[in-house]
């Protein structure tokens, strides 16, 4: 059951991080969502053997992490937990793609190793950027931003409900599992036990939904959840969006590391 408890602790930590007042959290959520989507589009638009040209894009997640004061240790742990899938999917590349590519003068590598490196770098870029934005924004602001950008209200309400009751039902699930262990239950329950364990949790979920619905009706619920605070777009947000998108376009159009290297060494061309 440690899995459920640690997942909840993780969610709570993300919420705590987002509740702080940082340079990142003060930005309008819409600005962060739009810029991050532009970032993702730019990163994944590269050809599959790209490694070096992707390096300038590290600036965006690094800036987010710094602005949002997101702890690197937390981020690294998240990355490590999510990494196996990307590694699994990419690890076959060196075996399958043996066509040699000249990466530097006189140095050739199998194309597969380069594309594997590219997959890992893409993974690190996209995951860090998304996690940093979430940790610097929080679920409520994020949902308000999504709604303002045209996401159906029913869905943002659904996200907020899920967010609220994941803690409640997750906590109940964790307590049930603890109770089972306290009575001598070891390992994973059998299917029959699972049926009634998870079944009772499901019953509680239904009953809770019933109570919440009555409480909401009593408070004048009409099928829509309204944001508690209006979003305010400031010039800071415009600068953030325009500046970053301009950077992504520049990095996409110009091979920045090579340009920099030429400036520094006076070679090439």
């Amino acid at each position: 059951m440690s899995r459920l408890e640690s997942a909840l602790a993780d969610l709570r930590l993300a919420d705590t991080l987002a509740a702080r007042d940082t340079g990142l959290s003060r930005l309008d959520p819409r600005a962060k969502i739009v810029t991050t989507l532009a970032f993702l589009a730019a990163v994944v638009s590269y050809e599959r053997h790209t490694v070096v040209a992707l390096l300038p894009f590290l600036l965006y997640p690094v800036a987010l992490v710094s602005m949002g004061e997101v702890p690197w240790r937390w981020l690294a742990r998240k990355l490590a937990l999510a990494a196996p899938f990307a590694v699994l999917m990419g690890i076959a590349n060196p075996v399958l793609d043996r066509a040699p590519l000249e990466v530097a003068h006189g140095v050739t590598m199998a194309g597969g190793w380069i594309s594997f490196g590219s997959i890992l770098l893409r993974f690190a870029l996209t995951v860090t950027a998304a996690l940093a934005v979430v940790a610097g924004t929080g679920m409520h602001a994020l949902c308000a931003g999504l709604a303002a950008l045209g996401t159906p209200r029913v869905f943002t309400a659904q996200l907020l409900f899920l967010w609220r009751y994941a803690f409640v039902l997750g906590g109940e699930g964790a307590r049930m599992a603890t109770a089972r262990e306290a009575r001598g239950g070891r390992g994973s329950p059998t299917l029959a036990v699972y049926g009634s364990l998870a079944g009772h949790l499901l019953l509680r979920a239904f009953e809770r939904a019933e109570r919440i619905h009555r409480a909401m009706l009593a408070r004048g619920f009409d099928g829509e959840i309204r944001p508690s605070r209006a979003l305010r777009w400031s010039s800071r947000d415009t600068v953030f969006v325009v500046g970053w998108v301009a950077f992504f376009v520049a990095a996409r159009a110009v091979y920045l590391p090579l340009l920099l290297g030429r400036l520094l060494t006076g070679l090439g061309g």
Partner: protein
Amino acid sequence: MHMADALLSPAVGGAMWVASAATLAVCARKVSARSEDRIVPLMGVLGAFVFAAQMINFAIPGTGSSGHLGGGLLLAILLGPSAAFLAIASVLTVQALFFADGGLLALGANLFNIGVLPCFVAYPLLYRPLAPAGSSRARVGIAASVAAVGGLLLGATGVVLQTVASGISSLPAGPFLALMLPIHLAIGLAEGLATAALVLFLAKARPDLLPAAPAPLRRRSLAGFAVAAALVAGVLSWFASPQPDGLEWSIARAAGMAELKAPEGGMHGSMARLQSTTALLPDYDLPASRAAAQGEAAWPEVNAGKSFAGLVGALATLGLVVAAGFALRRRR
């Protein structure tokens, strides 16, 4: 089973986003139009239940391994497909945002593989006909297992098709599929057992909570799904062949794949052809293939000066990024 950003090309990721967002919009409209506003908190709390239940394992007899609930099929049985899709979509979104499962660009693909396929294919086409109202316990169990397995195999096929069409990973379709399908057969059986256990428990404890009459599959929702599927198939097929990387999987193998997905193959094919004649797709095609062509062309020309400059530049870029990180942190 979650698709990841790192493996998706923008064309495939974008196409899946369009398909899933369209489905989400249609489902949201249908759910808002429902007269009972009771559904809103119910969806939310059941979404939270699935979120929690995914982390409770049970032992699979005789194997020593354990399984857990996926949730898409269970939600479809309890809420009907539209509300179920919204609920499972919210679970996947939270997982993508907070646990980096998949990623934001891949969210469209994941919503499709784990949400649309179980809710709008496996539930109406497998579960409902196999377990009509008033079915015996054994029948409900078998129907849930068959539908769960069907949904997961479709989802796994989706992952393979999206990965291969993206061309970032070098995995060829055939062996990849041969690897994914048996794994997901096992996962699907576990999910089916968990779903059946919960449905049967509920039927015994609180039969009033199970929807009594099967929600009839409305023609319009089927049409909406068909359009989304055709759009996806159309966009995927458009991009599959002009991949510049010389993927070994040939048109012949792609045709073999189409046969594997037989149930909708005919419709997919004809809708895809219809779709590829519309004006929208060529627009999508342009930037991606142009970018790819540029990338390919940049590779062969390597000389000593350029590669040294490149190496220095790469290191300098990293240095600048680290410095910028510190500078931004200091300033506060």
